[in-house]
């Protein structure tokens, strides 16, 4: 009796959890199917649940209306450069804040913490004016530079650098290693997991970012993926097959990386909120 009650409650929990999984995953499946259908078929009732054969045509029309390869490249280039440089900058700053005592340390760290608290929307208008003055609208640097020093990444790297034992730094100094050498050959290798998490966090926030690129990019060939997708919606007649394919192409690469590196990914996207 007790046993069967336990069993049925277990089955109940399973059913609810699986229903949740279906809700989480179904939109992805439907997006994939939609990318292989012509616009009209996407809105057919009953809905088509199996892939069609319109993928090539959707790709062609997507390329015609947006020049998709260039847009994909824009997004990828911006996100990669941003991630590499930003991870390095925040590791350097994090290291200095964690392992050195110097005049003004608290002051500088306080400034960084303050910017962490302020909604980024406040900077939009002056930054836009700055980009106009520099003649930087529609450039990669306009997207990359303003958020290149991420206070959040600096904070996370500082927390992680703190756990590096002082003794290994001292030992390297005694051996006569220069400060740069210590940083690159001693510190960075031991903080690799934290760097990976920070890098994924930075990559995702840049890859998915809409508002700032929307403001600074107005020429089609400089669009990033989110801006390009939002521009498709603004059209008088939306081609939904094309839209679904664009959405798929912006999501699938991330999905593959996620499935390959899920643990790093989860702690990265959660910004180190979860330690594993």
């Amino acid at each position, binding site marked *: 009796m007790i046993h069967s009650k336990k069993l049925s409650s277990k089955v109940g929990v399973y059913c609810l959890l699986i229903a949740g999984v279906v809700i989480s995953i179904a939109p992805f499946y439907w997006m994939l199917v939609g990318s292989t259908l012509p616009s009209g078929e996407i809105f057919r009732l009953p809905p088509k649940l199996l892939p069609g054969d319109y993928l090539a045509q959707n790709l062609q029309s997507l390329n015609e209306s947006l020049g998709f390869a260039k847009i994909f490249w824009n997004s990828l280039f911006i996100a990669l450069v941003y991630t590499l440089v930003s991870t390095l900058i925040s590791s350097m700053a994090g290291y200095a804040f964690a392992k050195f005592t110097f005049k003004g340390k608290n002051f500088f760290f306080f400034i960084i913490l303050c910017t962490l608290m302020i909604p980024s929307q*406040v900077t*939009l208008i002056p930054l836009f004016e700055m980009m106009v003055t520099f003649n930087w609208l529609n450039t990669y640097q306009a997207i990359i530079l303003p958020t290149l020093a991420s206070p959040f990444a600096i904070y996370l790297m500082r927390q992680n650098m703190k756990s590096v034992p002082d003794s290994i730094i001292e030992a390297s100094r005694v051996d006569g290693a220069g400060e740069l050498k210590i940083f690159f050959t001693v510190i960075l290798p031991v903080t690799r997991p934290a760097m990976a998490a920070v890098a994924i966090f930075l990559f995702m926030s840049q890859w998915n970012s809409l508002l700032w690129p929307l*403001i600074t990019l107005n020429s089609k060939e400089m669009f990033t993926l989110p801006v390009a997708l939002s521009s498709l919606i603004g059209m008088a007649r939306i081609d939904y097959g094309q839209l679904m394919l664009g959405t798929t192409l912006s999501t699938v690469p991330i999905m593959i990386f996620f499935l390959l590196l899920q643990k790093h990914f989860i702690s990265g996207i959660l910004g180190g909120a979860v330690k594993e």
Partner: protein
Amino acid sequence: MEQTEKVVNTKPNFRVKSRKSLLTPKNVPYVFIAPAVLLILIFTVYPVIFSFILSFQEVRGVEKSFVGFANYTRLFQDPVFYKSLLNTFQILIVQVPIMLFLSLLIAVGLHSSMLKGKAFFRISYFMPAITALVAASIVFMILLDEHFGLVNYLLSFVGIEAIPWLTTPFWAKVSVILVMTWRWTGYNMVIFLAGLQNIPSELYEAASIDGASKVKQFFMITIPQLKPVFIFTVVMSTIGTLQLFDEPFILTQGGPNNATMTITLYLYEAGFKFFDFGYASAIAYVLVIITAIISWIQMKLAGDES
């Protein structure tokens, strides 16, 4: 240049020494923080200050003139601004509790030790959190179509008539809430799950020995132990919702009849549709103040109880 090379060639040790004198343990921290600090000063601190000044100015083309509090007085007489505030708070008050409740529920379900396939569930639930908000909004825009959307089609089987998701003020807000909940529930669930795993099992063992029921254990151990995690998710979700932009921008463009106009969407329109930079800066500063007040209240509440 030539000389250095010579030195390097003849006595390699000199090179090490000369580098050492360039970067000493004393000056090296400044070198290491320099890029970050410079970038933050130029691209964050300066704009934050400049935006404050702008909020007291009127901008006409390249000409700027000080107008005192005019932008702010205009703001507080602007019905659309009030509407955007109200919408943002309505979405906040409904969405955050629902989402966090669901997250906690799933996390507790997954944490119960008998369950198999935990890793599979965890990955599946986390999937929405890796999608761009733009992508999620586009997919839902189509799913929620009134006449041909999959959601209404499925609802028709249980006898629910077609819901005008995106075209009526009430349902448009519900749609935004739906997309947000779909996108963020798994994200928060994983945070709760980690929190649950960090609760020492001895606490439960001791409670079992004392004869406390599972339900009692949940309220006496789980909930109090999860409090820091809970506060973290509440603060982060609140700050995120106050800055809501992508979902209403894609789903409804703030409509119908401004029903999904949010603070950030209004700021965007004022700034980059009407190029009213002074007014947009004033909106931005109201957002800063609201965020500061709410964060302060939440921190205060969290601090007082513990």
